[in-house]
């Protein structure tokens, strides 16, 4: 186990280093560059620009800049946002909670519903329910999230007036129920695609387990059906899903991007779009790192989860 942990940690560090190198290079080679926002200021001469570039260390070779950035990042200084000079780590941290709240709620919905639909579909294969679930998943996957979001806003906010059209809370209210009511629409819209994905994987995994010899053994013991399904089918079918969940953790930022934009949700996805607009490279770089770190953590947690759930892995 110790060897496994060290191995995984080293692997993670290498991955983060590679992502950061690629990210740093791409950002610095991209047209525009960090100076473009200063360049638009009236009365700014090339001399002034050179001076600013020198102050910011931008006239040094890229490898040197990268090493400098890397050393700072490791020591906890992720740079300052070009927009308001606040530390990148603070900016990311502030927006993270909004995203975690949205993603957490929506993932909980997706996993619960997706598992249920997937298992029922597999148990009643080729039934009307299974057929409807299959078609439903295809529809959910083929319609873009922003369209769902806009349609939901149109009906439930504009037409019916039941739910707020956006934002995380009403200024001045911020009670639990206020947060909850703001959460409903974005979390469901965001969950739709994930329910579809999760239920398809769960269905396949369940069908796979149902054909196993040990399920026949469980039936031969005269166990009640609920017990066979829970302890011998679903229990085993969930194991590969842990890996899937781990792979989904880093998609937090990307996954919420559209939803957060449609529902003006103040999370990491919105932050990313805004930072792109401002050429706010330190923040973009910070989000990239954050996402890479989440990837590593996600895989790591998934491996531990699988090991806990599956003695073959744990003891093998």
């Amino acid at each position, binding site marked *: 186990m110790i060897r496994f942990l060290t191995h995984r940690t080293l692997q993670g560090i290498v991955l983060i280093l590679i992502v950061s190198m690629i990210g740093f290079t791409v950002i610095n080679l991209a047209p525009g560059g960090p100076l473009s926002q200063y360049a638009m200021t009236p009365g700014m001469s090339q001399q002034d620009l050179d001076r600013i570039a020198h102050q910011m260390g931008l006239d040094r070779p890229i490898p040197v800049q990268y090493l400098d950035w890397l050393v700072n990042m490791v020591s906890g200084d992720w740079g300052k946002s070009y927009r308001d000079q606040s530390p990148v780590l603070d900016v990311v941290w502030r927006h993270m909670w909004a995203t975690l709240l949205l993603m957490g709620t929506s993932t909980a919905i997706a996993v619960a519903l997706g598992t249920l639909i997937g298992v029922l579909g597999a148990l009643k294969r080729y039934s009307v329910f299974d057929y409807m679930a299959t078609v439903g998943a295809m529809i959910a996957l083929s319609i873009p999230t922003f369209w769902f979001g806009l349609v939901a806003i149109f009906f439930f906010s504009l037409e019916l007036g039941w739910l707020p059209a956006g934002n995380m809370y009403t200024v001045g209210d911020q009670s639990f129920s206020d947060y909850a009511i703001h959460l409903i629409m974005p979390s469901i819209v965001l969950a739709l695609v994930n329910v579809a994905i999760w239920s398809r994987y769960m269905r396949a995994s369940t069908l796979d387990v149902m054909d*196993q*010899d*040990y399920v*026949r*053994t*469980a*039936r*031969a*013991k*005269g*166990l*009640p*059906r609920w*017990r066979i399904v829970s*302890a*011998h089918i679903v*229990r*085993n079918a969930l*194991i590969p899903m842990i890996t899937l969940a781990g792979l989904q953790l880093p998609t937090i930022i990307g996954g919420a991007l559209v939803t957060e934009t449609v529902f003006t949700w103040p999370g990491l996805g919105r932050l990313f779009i805004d930072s792109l607009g401002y050429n706010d490279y330190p923040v973009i770089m910070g989000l990239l790192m954050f996402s890479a770190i989440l990837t590593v953590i996600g895989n790591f947690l998934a491996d531990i989860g699988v090991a806990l*759930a*599956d*003695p*073959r892995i744990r*003891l*093998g």
Partner: protein
Amino acid sequence: MTDPVLSVRDLRIRFRSGGRETQVVHGVDFDIRGGETLALVGESGSGKSVTSFALMRLLPEAPRCTIEGSVSMGGVNLLELSERRMAQVRGPRIAMIFQEPLTSLNPVHRVGDQIAEAIRFHRKMSKADIRARVIELLTLVGIPDPARRMHAYPGEMSGGMRQRVVIAMALALEPDLLIADEPTTALDVTVQAQILELLRQIQRATNMAMLFITHDFGVVAEIAERVMVMYAGRIVEQGSLADVLSNPRMPYTRGLLASVPRFEDAGLKTGPLGTIEGFVPSPDNLPAGCSFHPRCPHARPGICDGALPELAAHGAGAHLVRCARSDEPAFGAEPAEVS
């Protein structure tokens, strides 16, 4: 004679896949009595496992598989029971040991828990009593240090040990009938002998009936009182151990016996190689007449490829043979034709 524990009449099994229906068992009849071991032998694919799964209703559900006929136990046709009532039969009345010891245990549960589970849903017993019973069962099947081994996962055990766990599970409720589907085929010879001995001991102690499936006549001779030979989904010969092993009347049985070295010098006339040429026909393409005639060294055109022979009594006893030529005086003494 006592009433049979289990009576099977005209058992027919069909599978359907992709709109096509294939019948793999074509009307099987047999009885098993308490304390008796009935061996079911036949080549791979002859329908032994499917027949035994049907007795416990472990085959896929209705549209994918149809079971017809009757399987009676204590006057009740098991094929007509609801799934819930059937679950009460599985375990205390009929239990089963499966062909594949490596895959028939759930890899994520401890073996002790899997045995306890077999007891828990049929008997009102305290946790401590169940635990004691699990240890007792593991001791019975010869697993050393059971109080510790009950906490092991299947992956931590050898094939032989896992098969013992499956046996312990099947014996947990002292069933009236134990179906053992090639319980030792996947195991090495010494383990095989131990497990056979174990089953025999338990049977003597509890008067359990046993349906023992195998394709090894060596095992049959050691364990069975009666033998049933299956070919392409039909019983082709049935009788006492002496009838079938010493006086086989169906050429297929002779072929099977001849492939076992120790029966070769029992004075049986068989083909030159002592093996049966060709393969078991595919269930959806059975030959007309006797299913075995294309491979049979004694087959005669006009006799064997016309009507399907009945499973008829041979001699006075309960020796049944499905062969159109079994009563011909010269049959069996003539040299087999080399094809």
